[in-house]
């Protein structure tokens, strides 16, 4: 490898590493399954390397990378089979078997928590792609409205309205107007 190539590789590594965690989470939220998320993630890293010159000039690489990932996902949506979270089996919740849930040391409560997670997963799966994505990004992954705008290109007002409707639909899908509370 030439010194130029070594420099490129080092710059690439230094530039991207701080953003990989968040990028990985976004890939999973978009793709819905671990194998497809990792394919999406890898594709975006390849794209990022090809545009390393541009990336070195970008002030905030994080949103830039998220935008590239989102656009790549949209462009390849038919090819990337989305694993809708229709049924969440206990084995799919990595590390979340009853034995490994952070314990209240109360098996009944632990079972209720697992059940809550599964119910919420089912409810999210009933939403449209747009509504589910905005809930995943804003309410689950803590992206601000302005950040979601940077990723999707949609106006902030549109995103806000969509979020409002998505929450209403989620509450309806949960059947309790938004609560998982138990008697």
């Amino acid at each position, binding site marked *: *490898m*030439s010194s130029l*190539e070594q420099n*490129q*590789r080092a710059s*690439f*590594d230094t530039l*991207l*590493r701080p953003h*990989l965690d968040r990028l*990985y*989470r976004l890939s*999973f939220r978009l793709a819905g399954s*671990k194998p497809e*998320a*990792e394919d999406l*993630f*890898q594709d975006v*890293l*390849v794209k*990022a*390397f*090809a545009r*390393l*010159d*541009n990336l070195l000039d970008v002030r905030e690489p994080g949103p830039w990378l998220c935008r590239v990932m989102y656009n790549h996902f949209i462009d390849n949506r038919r090819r990337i089979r989305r694993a809708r*979270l229709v049924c*969440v089996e206990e084995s799919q*919740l*990595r*590390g*979340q078997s009853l034995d490994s849930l952070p314990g209240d040391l109360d098996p009944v409560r632990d079972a209720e*928590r697992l059940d*809550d*997670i599964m119910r*919420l*997963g089912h409810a*999210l799966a009933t939403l449209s792609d747009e509504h589910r994505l905005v*809930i*995943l990004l804003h*309410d*689950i*992954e803590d992206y601000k409205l302005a950040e979601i705008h940077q990723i999707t290109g949609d106006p902030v007002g549109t995103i*806000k309205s969509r*979020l*409002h409707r998505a*929450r209403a639909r*989620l*509450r309806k899908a*949960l059947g*309790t*107007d*938004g*609560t*998982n*509370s138990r008697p």
Partner: protein
Amino acid sequence: MTCTQLKEKLDDYVDGLMDRAESATLGAHIENCNDCHQVLARAQGLRASLKAYGKSSMPRPDATFFDRALARAAQTGIRRQRNRWIMTGAGGIIAAGLVLWMLGGMFLKTPEIVAPAMPSIVMTLEEPRTLNLVFSSATTLANATMTVVLPQGVEVVGFAGQREITWITSLAEGKNILPLTLIATSPEGGELMATLRHEGDDRTFRVQVSIIS
């Protein structure tokens, strides 16, 4: 504030997007309205459930996944770069059909060569084009320096913004081919110069680049 108004503004309140005055008004309503108090509690409960769901439903990548993904992306990118432009091992010049013969170690002393009219190529804006420079040498020449100076508006693919690129090369006996993948980013065009230097001597070759849109 009415209950209907509150429900419309509840998202902003829970998300912390409401100004202080309006937030105080909403808060005062909630203190005096049991129904709205329940609505707020449910909204906050849902947020908490979603956060918990987020933590629990995210798979962990394998410990080395990020390292492998970065390495794989760099390898793929570098391989594609190399396929576009071979920089090592051979450098040679032919511009649009011109072949320059280099004789012996004193490769610049070739008085027999009569420079023809400057060769030219035509490029289309934003369309990459590969220019093959072919250089024939009667002998191997180690540690020669090749410098390519590009006209305005022309770049080598993979070297955005660089007007001059220099590298060390060795010339094999016989034909040495250097493919340069160029792209025209603006319509100026002009002269592309490739200069080969070796042990104090140098020779410059020129190609006229015209750009059409």
